[in-house]
């Protein structure tokens, strides 16, 4: 599905900050992978590079067999729109749009007609158990509900790859488990590749593979599936 080789990333905010120092990583189609590591170790940076939200300085990144290098903003937007769904720690829903409209938004940017869009959005809201909340604004929803709306939004365009940056970081443990169950189920039934960044070992343990990042490098990989 995707392969990274020797990825380096340096931020330049006055002082140079070498965040990723040569990441080699391959993720197979349909895999459910977690990334763990100390705060500031470069997990989000790595995920953003994989999600084409950020670019890298050195190395090669191939997604679905295509080399992702020096993409223009337009090309990146097109790839994101076709391949990738995002789930964020802070949900990142648009506050003035209802749950349904938020879920439907990725399809709008793919040019899907409104009726089809809303039908599908309702279907996905149903999948995450929020059909009755379709017309509510994000501010009227609980944290867990908001994250489920965000998950529905990430899934609606049927991306091959779902990236989740600490999706349970703002949720209590019960709600966290519900969210992970949901992601796991989608991974199983739809075969979507998933990469989630998490701090919680009990969550990471439920994935196929744990990638440990220390100081900008992959220190070791735990393969739970074949263990």
């Amino acid at each position, binding site marked *: 599905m995707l392969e990274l080789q020797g990825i380096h990333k340096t931020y330049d905010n006055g002082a140079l900050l070498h965040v990723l120092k040569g990441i080699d990583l391959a993720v197979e189609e349909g895999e459910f992978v977690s990334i763990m590591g100390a705060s500031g170790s470069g997990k989000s940076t790595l995920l953003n590079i994989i999600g084409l*939200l950020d670019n890298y300085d050195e190395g090669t990144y191939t997604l679905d067999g295509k080399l992702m290098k020096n993409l223009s*903003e337009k090309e990146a*937007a097109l790839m994101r729109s076709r391949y990738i769904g995002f789930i964020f720690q802070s949900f*990142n829903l648009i506050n*003035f749009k209802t749950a349904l409209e938020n879920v439907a*938004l990725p399809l*709008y940017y793919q040019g899907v007609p409104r009726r089809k869009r809303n039908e599908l959005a309702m279907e996905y809201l149903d999948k995450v158990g929020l059909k009755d909340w379709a017309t509510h604004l994000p501010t009227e929803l609980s944290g867990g509900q908001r994250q489920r709306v965000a998950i529905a*939004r990430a899934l609606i365009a049927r991306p091959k790859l779902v990236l989740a940056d600490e999706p349970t970081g703002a949720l209590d443990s019960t709600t966290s488990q519900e969210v992970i169950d949901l992601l796991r189920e989608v991974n199983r039934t739809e075969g979507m590749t998933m990469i989630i960044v998490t701090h919680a070992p009990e969550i990471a343990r439920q994935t196929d593979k744990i990638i440990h990042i220390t100081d900008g490098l992959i220190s070791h990989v735990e393969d739970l599936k074949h263990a």
Partner: protein
Amino acid sequence: MFDIDFWQELWHTITANKKRSVLTAFGVTWGMVMLIVMAGCGFGLKKSLNEQFESVDANAGILFSNFTTEAYDGYKAGRWWQLTDDDLELLRSQYPEIKRITGEISQGGGLGNNVVRNGQGGAYSLRGIEPVFQSILSTKMLSGRYINNIDIDQSRKVCVIGRKIVNALYMPGEDPIGTTIQVNGIGFTVVGTCTDASESVNIGSEDDETVILPISTMRLMFGSNNTTLDMIVFATDGKAPIAPLTERIRQTLYSAHHISPTDKGAMWVMSMQDILNKTNALFGGLTILIWLVGIGTLLAGAVGVSNIMLVTVRERRQEIGIRRALGASPRVIIRQILCESFVLTSLAGIVGIVLGVWLLRLVANIITASSDSGFVLNPQISFGLTMVALAILIVLGIAAGLLPAQKAISVKAVEALQEE
């Protein structure tokens, strides 16, 4: 992608953020209202003036005497001299290009209540004239008739009174024609009422506040058979240029009255053409001013839109980041913001037009109601001009959206998303 969906998404973004949208639109609406009201008043004023100028004979001229300023022919400087009937005859016989000429005597209204009716009275100017006077300076009759030749021949005690005198001495609806008023203690029959033909171009006293008498009667009233005149008015055939003609007239009268040919101050002579030219120049300046201020207001409105858009784009960084993460390309984002700007400025502009036109009506009504003169400032604005202003505003509005739109995509999606 400019389909219904696009506009629905746009409209949703605008209406879901009412405060933000109203704030953005306000500057534009304000600019439009200002422009419409100002341009409307300016053009109304100009139109009214033009209408008034049409009633003034540009070929008319007036002249009156003044103290001499140079010693000449044995006379000292500072001598007072007066125009007489002989001067009238002299000009009439020597200048075939003068078609009509007449003299006038007048008395100012500063000496207590010289005009009285039923105990009601006021201080008004008196003006003794011949009938031809009306055709040269275009006094406008409201009712009855003007002074005629029989009045002059028989020195009748008749008069024509101005509109304001009617208002002061008569009840509303009362007909002054045929009534008697006391002028300097002598009874005169009112035969007509009049008003100024032009509010802005006046010679001597205003017709509105003047009692017009036959010149012969007025001379008798002051108890003398003298032939002096206070002013001579004339009208040319319009073929000869008026400036050299007035200079020749000056020299003719100077030599008759022993005044130095180089004495500029001893006589006032002015043509209507001069007055019209000066007034036109004044209002040309006014028009330029209106446009300057109008364009300034529009620019200020556009800068305001740009500023508020910048602020809102900063507020919307996260939203824009989300949209980009969900697959919106920079072009789509720019187009969205420009179109938002376009829709907002257009709507705000139209609201501004409606408000402006309404306000203009209101101003017109207030002016008409409070103005007791015949002068109606008729504020109005043409449809074409309104559309031009709207077009300018929309172009400015879109231009104003450009900078914020650029700013919106200059931030990387990932950075926008990280901000909380």
